[in-house]
């Protein structure tokens, strides 16, 4: 698992130790470009922690560039596209207002790690949320497990899991699925 401290990237990008706020669209675009370059250096199948712990605040424009456009790069219509997954850490209520707004705008979702575990946040419907939570609870799941949880057939469970996979909210490992945030740091 890779770890990117967003505040470190911010300071490197701006070449200024004084700024700890993610504000303005050009700043956001520069930070995202740097994150993408770091992700590009990893394997085709990668999980990266995007850590906001040391970020003071983020405005809407910057959230659009750093979070929404980053996710849009890797949310795949093509199931064989590069598999880059992100786990967001250190996101406070102060950050969440802006991030939630841009997720809503682009119909995106992400996995957020908090003190009590990982949670899927943003734009997901009830079936997708239920399926994601079941995969997270089980650690590794196959469509039959999710079919029981959804009270649906296996084909419906496969369809929902495939949507979650394309949205990079669950990872496909061998013949099963693992939730982003559902692996220990050493397992990923």
């Amino acid at each position: 698992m890779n770890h990117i401290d967003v505040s470190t990237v911010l300071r490197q990008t701006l070449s200024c130790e004084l700024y700890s706020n993610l504000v303005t669209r050009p700043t956001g675009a520069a930070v995202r470009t740097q994150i993408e370059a770091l992700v590009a250096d990893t394997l085709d199948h990668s999980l990266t922690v995007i850590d906001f712990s040391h970020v003071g605040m983020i405005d809407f424009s910057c959230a659009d560039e750093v979070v929404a456009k980053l996710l849009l790069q890797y949310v795949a219509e093509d199931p064989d596209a590069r598999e880059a997954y992100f786990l967001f850490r250190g996101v406070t209520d102060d950050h969440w207002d802006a991030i939630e707004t841009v997720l809503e705008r682009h119909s995106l979702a992400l996995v957020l790690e908090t003190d009590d575990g990982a949670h899927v946040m943003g734009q997901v419907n009830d079936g997708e949320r239920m399926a994601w939570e079941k995969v997270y609870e089980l650690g590794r799941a196959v469509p039959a497990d999710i079919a029981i949880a959804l009270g649906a057939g296996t084909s419906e469970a496969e369809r929902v899991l495939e949507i979650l996979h394309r949205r990079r909210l669950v990872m496909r490992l061998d013949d099963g699925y693992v939730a982003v945030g559902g692996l220990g740091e050493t397992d990923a």
Partner: protein
Amino acid sequence: MTSVITVPQSLDDRTFEQVVEQLAAVPADAKVLVDARHTRWSSPYGLTALLTLGQSRAEKAGFAVPEAEETASYWARAGFFRHAEELFELSGSVPKAKSGESSVLLEVTSVANSDDVHTVVGRIQQKAQKMLATELHIESRATVGFAMTLSEICQNIVEHAGRGGWVAVQAYTYRQRPPHRRLIVIAVCDAGLGFRQSLESLPGRVRDERWDDAAALEEAVIRGGSRFRDPGRGQGLAGVRKYIGRWDGKLTVRSGTARIAIVPSWDEDVPLEEKLAPFPGAQVQVIIPERVSGSPR
């Protein structure tokens, strides 16, 4: 011949219209003298809008400084003259700026690029937190939204104006209607393209007979429209509206010949004004009031 533009005794977003109306009768390249000798008070909007007036003139305008020592001294502390001396030929006694004015949260500051926005946000955070908590009785989490609001409005200048503008933030007491609440006011003014011209630069935009400054303001402020095709654009002002809604605040945006307002229950402004005297650029004001029992949150 020099045309004299008289600044009202009390200058805010409403009375600045008297200045604009006087200007409308003067050719753009004519010499003007902005006479503020009898002005006793100005909101941050008034100060930043006066600077945009200076910026918009083809020939450097004259500016007669307020005669009241207290007023001139306050304007100096608010940083007005530091910028005004570059835009106007100042006449009268210009006091030296002294520190110690607690109601000035952010003195008049120029905004022209992304670095300026970082500086403004960095400067405001600590002082705004204290002011919001102690004077407006708003919980500390409002500070982040306040800084976000400031950031987004300032970015409008960087992204859309095509030239620099100014921002100022100040706290004062609203005396127009009881209860006399404390307010924090953000004013951001520029003399750039304005909303209509900015939106018109989107390729393929269809302009019908209803398209004017008012329609452009409705498009940008109410519907989140932007001159960019990027679907992520236009979220800034939407976010500002969300913030002022949460804290019972007020937003006004004037551009060209129109002015739009998101009006809270404690104010009696009109939502949309059209056919105002023309003024270049965009002038934005956000007001966050003191929280009283029963205010929305």
